[in-house]
């Protein structure tokens, strides 16, 4: 449910005119809520959304992939899966 609520929050922020991107590890739940922009690092789990503790390079790849969604026209309401 927390993953649904965070998309509700995301949609409210986006509707204020501030672009947003969600990093989700529960893409099936997130897709149902139609996030403005979202990425799903494949294989990542709850509590390790960007990677495990100390996996700085992997965490950074996930964060930069999320931020790069601001650089092109993301199809609203979709979640982009990627291998981190």
């Amino acid at each position: 449910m927390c993953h649904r609520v965070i998309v509700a929050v995301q949609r409210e922020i986006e509707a204020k005119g501030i672009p947003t991107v969600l990093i989700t590890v529960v893409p099936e739940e997130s897709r149902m809520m139609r996030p403005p922009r979202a990425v799903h690092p494949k294989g990542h789990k709850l509590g390790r959304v960007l990677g495990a503790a100390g996996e700085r390079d992997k965490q950074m790849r996930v964060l930069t992939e999320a931020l790069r969604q601001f650089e092109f026209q993301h199809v609203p309401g979709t979640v982009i899966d990627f291998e981190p």
Partner: protein
Amino acid sequence: MALQSFMSRKCVPYTPVTSHLKDLTVALVSSSGVYMEGQEPFTENGDESYRVIPAEATVSQLRFKHGHYDTSDAEKDPNVIFPLGLLHDLAREGFIKKVSNKHIGCKGFSTDLKAQYERLAPAIAHEIERSQADAVVLTGG
């Protein structure tokens, strides 16, 4: 009025980005139960509150209280779910312009889902609107 109460999920709010990444001030919003040392932790059960994490917060001051996921990695390294440290690194490298002056932590769980949609989500959006942020990265707990 809260967005969710009148907007169908079929309709997706979308704000085009008109600036380059290097010109964006970025905030974090997370339902990971993140809060700052000295602030009140989230409750064991449903919690409709949120915490404002100020710009001056250091990564070592971040705490996590959730109950629906294992927070042990987050306690060792908050970047696993609330990448404030990484965002500061990206600002130093010039990948983004700046880290925002305000970030938001919440638990995002309550038996009163309506309250989350109609009160929590708009309240957080209002906080962000009044901050320096011109882009937001969100993570779920």
